[in-house]
């Protein structure tokens, strides 16, 4: 999809007054947090697993070319093909071409954030294919023509009623006319509609949570089983993934899997974890005849040499979103592209450009929860701070909003300071934020007062910005 990250401020402001969204966010947030906490409490090995996971990722990233080469060789040995894409356009071209070669009409898709990043559906539809998302959440947002609002729960912002209405409109053509009232009814109808698609699809596209160099395996974790039907029934299975997803061995994969499901949904393991190794073999009586892996770079290789390489350790668990007071207040769509929350605020400016996404690095209170819950201990606040520094340096920000944001972060990260703030200070903040509407976030302070009070890294820029602003304000008052 095309990025709307430049409109972050307006989108965030709209999200705050969207009643049904606020309800959905409230409902979702606690569920994720409570479930994750319970799973972690039952895992005394968590810190050791985390340390090992970091070692695995650091090691792999510093030998990335060799592991990718090894992975490719193993895929070829098992009868598959690896395709390389520097850019999302190249990824689109490769996939469209593969679908043409397969004489496809219908393409089913398992959930893939890299697929979202590369806007594969748009490309397939433009080329005349019917592309159908089969993960229930992805299917819902596809019908609604919206991007995902969460990396593991794409339709988290939708209410039961909204989903029932969408199904009513879109399932008429399949002769489904009953009024859907309960969740089982909704899930059942989607099951029946999508069953037909699974059976008739010519190509199945899935993502990959990891790529195993040792065996050339691509693997997916799902709960619905849609990814497995997508990979098993059509004649051609295409895997779309990105270059940082490779890990050395099956044992390394097991370490990361133990962290992934617990961090994401609080499950010890998802219902289905599947390793795919090439096309149907001679003795097989089912499975795809063709197996392709498309690996996207899209700026990742350039992240290797600088501090941003930390972000390449991300296993897309979503924990940083679930624990972020800003995400919890505004939801995923406000961020304007496919990756929301703290990980998105780091990634989007890298992939879409600092200019396009210049507000995202400021969508943080620096409460530090994201780094704390991240199974790879990715220093998200530090990376956001670095983006901010670059923005200040490149003067992409107006001085007024720069001060406002610095102030906001300063206050927000100090609940002790925030609560007894005098009215006049609040009024000052209101004035500073008037243009952007940004300080309408302040009422949501309760979300971060519950979390730890971490040192506020913005303090310095606050002090200097404050002095500057005072001087400026005086001069403008005198005008």
């Amino acid at each position, binding site marked *: 999809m095309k990025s709307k990250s430049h409109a972050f401020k307006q989108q965030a402001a709209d999200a705050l007054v969207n009643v049904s969204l606020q309800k959905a966010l409230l409902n979702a947030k606690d*569920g994720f947090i409570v479930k994750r906490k319970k799973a972690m409490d039952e895992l005394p*090995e968590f810190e*050791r697993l985390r340390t*090992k*996971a970091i070692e695995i990722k650091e090691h792999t990233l*510093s*030998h*990335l*070319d060799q592991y990718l080469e*090894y992975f490719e060789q193993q895929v070829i040995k*098992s009868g598959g093909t690896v395709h*390389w*894409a*520097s850019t999302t356009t*190249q990824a689109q071209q490769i996939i469209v071409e593969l679908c043409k070669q397969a004489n496809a009409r219908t393409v089913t898709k398992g959930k893939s954030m890299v697929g979202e990043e590369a806007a594969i559906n748009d490309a397939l539809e433009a080329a005349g294919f019917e592309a159908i998302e089969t993960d*229930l959440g992805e299917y819902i947002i596809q019908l609604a023509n919206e991007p995902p609002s969460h990396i593991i*729960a*794409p339709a988290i912002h939708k209410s*039961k009623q909204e989903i029932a209405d969408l199904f009513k409109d879109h399932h008429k053509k399949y002769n489904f006319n009953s009024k859907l009232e309960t*969740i*089982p009814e*909704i899930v059942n109808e989607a*099951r029946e509609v999508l069953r037909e698609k*699974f059976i008739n699809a010519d190509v199945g596209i899935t993502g990959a949570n990891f790529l195993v*160099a040792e*065996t*050339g395996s691509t693997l997916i974790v799902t*709960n*619905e*089983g*849609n990814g*497995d*039907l997508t*990979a*098993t029934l059509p004649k051609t299975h295409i895997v779309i993934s990105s*270059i940082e997803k490779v890990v*050395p*061995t099956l*044992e*390394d994969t*097991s*370490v990361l899997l*133990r962290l992934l499901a617990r961090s994401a*949904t609080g499950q*010890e*393991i998802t*219902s*289905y*974890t*599947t*390793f*795919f*190794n090439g*096309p149907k073999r001679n*003795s*097989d009586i*089912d*499975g795809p005849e063709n197996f392709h892996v498309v690996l996207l770079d899209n700026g990742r*290789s*350039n992240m290797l040499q600088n501090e941003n390489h930390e972000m390449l350790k991300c296993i897309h668990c979503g924990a940083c979103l679930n624990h972020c007071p800003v995400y919890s207040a505004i939801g995923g769509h406000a961020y304007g592209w496919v990756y929301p929350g703290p990980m998105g605020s780091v990634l989007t400016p890298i992939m879409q450009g600092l200019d396009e996404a210049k507000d995202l690095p400021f969508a943080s209170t620096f409460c530090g929860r994201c780094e704390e819950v991240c199974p790879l201990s990715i220093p998200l606040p530090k990376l956001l701070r670095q983006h901010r520094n670059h923005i200040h340096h490149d003067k992409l920000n107006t001085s007024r909003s720069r001060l406002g944001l610095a102030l906001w972060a300063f206050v927000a990260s100090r609940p002790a300071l925030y609560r007894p703030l005098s009215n006049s200070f609040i009024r000052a903040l209101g004035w500073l934020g008037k243009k952007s509407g940004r300080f309408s976030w302040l009422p949501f302070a309760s979300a971060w007062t519950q979390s730890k009070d971490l040192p506020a890294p913005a303090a310095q820029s606050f002090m200097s910005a404050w002095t500057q602003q005072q001087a400026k304000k005086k001069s403008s008052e005198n005008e």
Partner: protein
Amino acid sequence: MNNAREEIFNRIKSKTRQNGQDAASIIERRLSAHQRGPVPVFPEELLERFILKLKNVVGTVKEISDMSELPAAVSEYLSSLNVEQKIVTAVPEIHSLNWPADFEVNNRAAISSDLSSVTMAYAAVAETGTLVLQAAKETPTSLNFLPDNFICVLKQQDIHTSMEDIWDAIRKDDKGMPRVVNFITGPSRTADVEQTIQLGAHGPRYLHVIIIRQAGSD
């Protein structure tokens, strides 16, 4: 064709700190060492743990002492679900059993009209209550995902402690990585509507494991 592969590798090479020769032996060592990370420990016996964890994810279990008891166990389970006495399987050891005269056994991969399937697990992981299935002629993957009622036969001696044990077992078989390895933990589920868990999203609505107890165990 684009030259993306070369571009990507050049970019990576120019940015990673490794020097060629040394690095090759480092990754080879790593790939062959199969070093395990921390593996959670649990106090229960393997069978007990497997059943405990399986029940947590809404799987059901029946223990029998011999393969010959399987037809009765399957028939009883289908009756309890109130569905037709009819299965699809591809496991020779299963379809060659003595099935009742009015029981229909189809010997093939699954098609969408199949309501119930029976297949054989390659192994199981006690840690998480997980079945492990391999794609093969006798155990085609569609049996695990298409039917509503998925019945899986598991031999007690095939229950291992952790996922890592499965990797060792596959290496010991010395037949390379199977085309598909499914780790299955409970029936299909979704929480995509208002974060409420609903079973039977796209895959099986029910998962029933029939464990054949190891001779000599009580």
